[in-house]
């Protein structure tokens, strides 16, 4: 079954937008004021290709003006932001470690009560993800605060490897470990992000996952995944990522050793890879110039979709099992912001699940916000979900829904405000197993309370004895750890992925197990300078012998020629003088 998707929220957003405009004309409390935003390029649904223009909609809704500025890297943002005078921006979106740094330097101010100022965030932000932000601690004005007090989460994801599953027989096994970047089998087929922190993750994990203690703790977790073992493993990865900042001699020595180990790893990796990339990687992997790419999960979604649409090619994403980096991008209010109340209003607007869904639809990254609309969108893209009566379903997407243990397919657009259930035959068609029916590869049916894929090209029957041949039970993918408490009552956070969509679904919404292996990479703090030097040494590392030989030869040749030239001139002059004297 081929899924044409990506239009669901378009209509959803438009209809909601209209409804909102009429609603908001009354509250013009902010009419005429200006909000200045600083965000990453291409990081909000902006009205291109018929997507919702969130900024425009916000302006219309509250009769305000939004100045929207963008940057390319967090470092550029920091450079620009610190150069501007205070009060230039009202809202800045940036990554976790950068927020830490800005809090430490007291460049941003704490958020006020979320429940009062940003009720949508309080209600719809995933509790599990906010818990992660709460774990990130940082000193501020002499006390320890956490990131959740300062930042409103926007998007999040993991760092992993996008790869072409056909590039070797063992690739699916190989990407389970970071060793793949050092594997000569993939020489000149790998590209790495030209970014210190991301390359650092690969170097660190490759260096430390070889250690015996690491292997022991990892194996203990894999064999017996209890909460305690999981926590121990997660803490271990976190310790590997973190620099010890207590200032003692012993910690300093350990930190320096860490940098030296990563340096050695990255230099040896440099020999094996195709190159570093800023933005070309996600296209190069689509065209097939490279086969493996270190990527953020959001970019991976983009690559996988583009490869499928443009080349009919299958790409996959995997987060190596040893562990990786989990990252968060979030909004902060800088010190001296002029329009704090409006900034809160904008954050509340972005935290509305409808708008978050528009963003996920356009950008491809996974929002912090969870809720019915996002779950429905994920369902439209990746698989069958429990039916929610307050959500829109589009016939074009062939949305599959589960209602009272039966699978239904949407055959006519159902608007969000039409309160009907899938037993309404005008809008939904029952997809229960029919012994008379003809099925093709990828079809999904419900049978006896379970969901099955048709996996063969031959005809087959769904029978308890024979089902594994042509009918495969679909494994439920449980996202309740993320969506807990935000879905409508009785709706389970389980997705039954379409055939071949399991990997994409995992890329968009990583499983709880995967997240347990990932750690946040805190700001390098006082070790930043040393890491930058390490990185510049890695980047500039090359065999210098030919360079030295070339330069020596050049100097010898040039000086030889000039000496020859000068002496000859000298002799000629002398000769001329003699001649004229005669």
């Amino acid at each position, binding site marked *: 079954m081929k899924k044409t998707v990506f239009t669901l929220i378009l209509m959803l957003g438009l209809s909601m937008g209209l409804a909102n405009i009429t609603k908001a004309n009354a509250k013009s409390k902010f009419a005429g004021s200006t909000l200045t935003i600083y965000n990453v390029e291409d990081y909000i649904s902006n009205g291109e290709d018929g997507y919702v223009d969130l900024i425009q909609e916000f302006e219309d809704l509250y009769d305000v003006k939004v100045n929207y500025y963008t940057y390319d890297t967090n*470092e550029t943002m920091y450079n620009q932001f610190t150069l501007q005078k205070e009060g230039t921006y009202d809202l800045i979106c940036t990554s976790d470690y950068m927020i830490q740094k800005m809090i430490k330097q007291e460049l941003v101010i704490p958020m006020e009560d979320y429940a009062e100022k940003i009720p949508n965030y309080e209600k719809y932000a995933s509790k599990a993800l906010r818990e992660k932000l709460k774990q990130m601690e940082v000193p501020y004005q002499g006390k320890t605060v956490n990131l959740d007090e300062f930042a409103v989460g926007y998007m999040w994801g993991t760092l992993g490897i996008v790869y072409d599953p056909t590039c070797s027989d063992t690739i699916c096994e190989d990407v389970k470990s970071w060793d793949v970047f050092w594997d000569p089998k993939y020489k000149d087929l790998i590209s790495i992000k*030209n970014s210190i922190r991301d390359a650092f993750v690969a170097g660190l994990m490759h260096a430390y996952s070889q250690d015996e203690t690491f292997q022991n703790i990892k194996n203990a977790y894999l064999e017996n995944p209890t909460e305690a073992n999981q926590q121990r493993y997660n803490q271990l990865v976190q310790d590997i990522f973190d620099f010890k900042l207590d200032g003692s001699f012993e910690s300093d020595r350990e930190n320096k050793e860490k940098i030296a180990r990563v340096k050695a790893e990255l230099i040896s990796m440099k020999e094996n890879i195709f*190159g570093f990339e800023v933005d070309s990687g996600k296209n190069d992997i689509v065209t097939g*110039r490279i086969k493996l790419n270190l990527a953020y999960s959001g970019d991976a979604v983009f690559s996988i979709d583009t490869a499928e649409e443009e080349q009919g090619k299958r790409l996959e994403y995997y987060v190596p099992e040893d562990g990786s980096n989990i990252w968060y991008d979030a909004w902060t209010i800088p010190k001296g912001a002029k329009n704090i109340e409006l900034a809160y209003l904008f954050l509340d607007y972005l935290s509305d699940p409808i708008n978050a869904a528009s963003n996920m639809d356009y950008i491809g990254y996974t929002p912090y916000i969870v809720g019915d609309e996002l779950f429905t969108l994920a369902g439209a893209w990746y698989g069958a979900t429990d039916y929610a009566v307050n959500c829109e379903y589009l016939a074009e997407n062939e949305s599959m829904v589960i209602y009272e243990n039966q699978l239904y397919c949407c055959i006519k657009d159902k608007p969000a405000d039409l309160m009907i259930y899938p037993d309404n035959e005008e809008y939904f068609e029952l997809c229960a197993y029919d012994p008379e029916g003809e099925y093709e590869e990828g079809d999904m049916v419900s049978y006896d309370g379970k969901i099955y894929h048709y996996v063969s090209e031959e005809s087959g029957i769904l029978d308890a004895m024979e089902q594994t041949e042509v009918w495969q039970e679909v494994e439920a993918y449980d996202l309740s750890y993320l969506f807990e408490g935000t879905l409508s009552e009785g709706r389970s956070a389980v997705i039954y992925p379409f055939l071949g969509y399991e990997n994409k679904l995992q890329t968009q919404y990583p499983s709880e197990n995967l997240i347990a292996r990932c750690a946040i990479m805190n700001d390098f703090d006082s070790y930043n300078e040393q890491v930058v030097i390490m990185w*510049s040494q890695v*980047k500039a590392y090359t065999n210098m012998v030919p*360079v*030295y030989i070339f330069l020596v030869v050049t100097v010898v040749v040039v000086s030889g020629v000039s000496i020859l030239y000068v002496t000859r001139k000298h002799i000629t002059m002398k000769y001329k003088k003699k001649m004229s004297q005669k």
Partner: protein
Amino acid sequence: MKFKRKYLSFPYVLFLICFIIIPVFFIIYYAFTNKGGAFTFDNLLKFFSDSTNVNVLLISFVYAILNTVICLLIGYPLAMILANKNYNRSSVMVMLFVMPMWINFIIRTSATRDVLNWIGISTGANSGLTTMIGLVYNYLPFVILPLYSTMLKMDKSQIEASADLGANRFVTFFKVIIPMTMPGIVSAATMVFMPTLSSYVISDILSEYNVVLFGSYIDLYFNQADWNFGSLMALIMLLLIGISVFISRKFSKDETGGRTSLW
């Protein structure tokens, strides 16, 4: 108030101050201060205490020298052909060689990357070679133009005289034509050597960031918000370029007795 001719120079003086003199002072200021703004020589010490920094500079020199030599070797005969009325009756040919310069060089370089990979020269596996190809391709017009214009102005009677006096074509070329086109060679060489030393987009794109020239090395530090160290390296590069201009000017003066070079 009477209008004086020197008022006409005011816009240029203003431009000079705003975009040349003040920025140079900024570079000097940042180069000799630390992050807190206090005067220090630490950046200078940092530069010479790590061999990587000097190595990057040396690598850039190698690329700059090679690029200059290759460009001259290709460009000189080409300019001679173009300047010869027997082969080239109109300036259309010259225009064809200069035409790549009309396209923005980042677009051109990205296209070069695709072409190179397409014909099988992997930018990742042969990054040194592809960088060199890109550099030569981009700077060749800068060599052809000055050489072409000096060759047009060349005194043909001297070449005839040399032949009359019994010199063969080989001797004529080395003893007459080369010295006569020396100002062109010098200005062509400077126009290639100096920008190559500081170029970085070409090497970044065509070597997949594997070849790091001094320009991209400075960029790396600026991007990581280390303006002071970046400025110091920019200052060092400025000095080196200044020295090379100085030498080349001396060189062209010696030969012709006047300032005929572009620089």
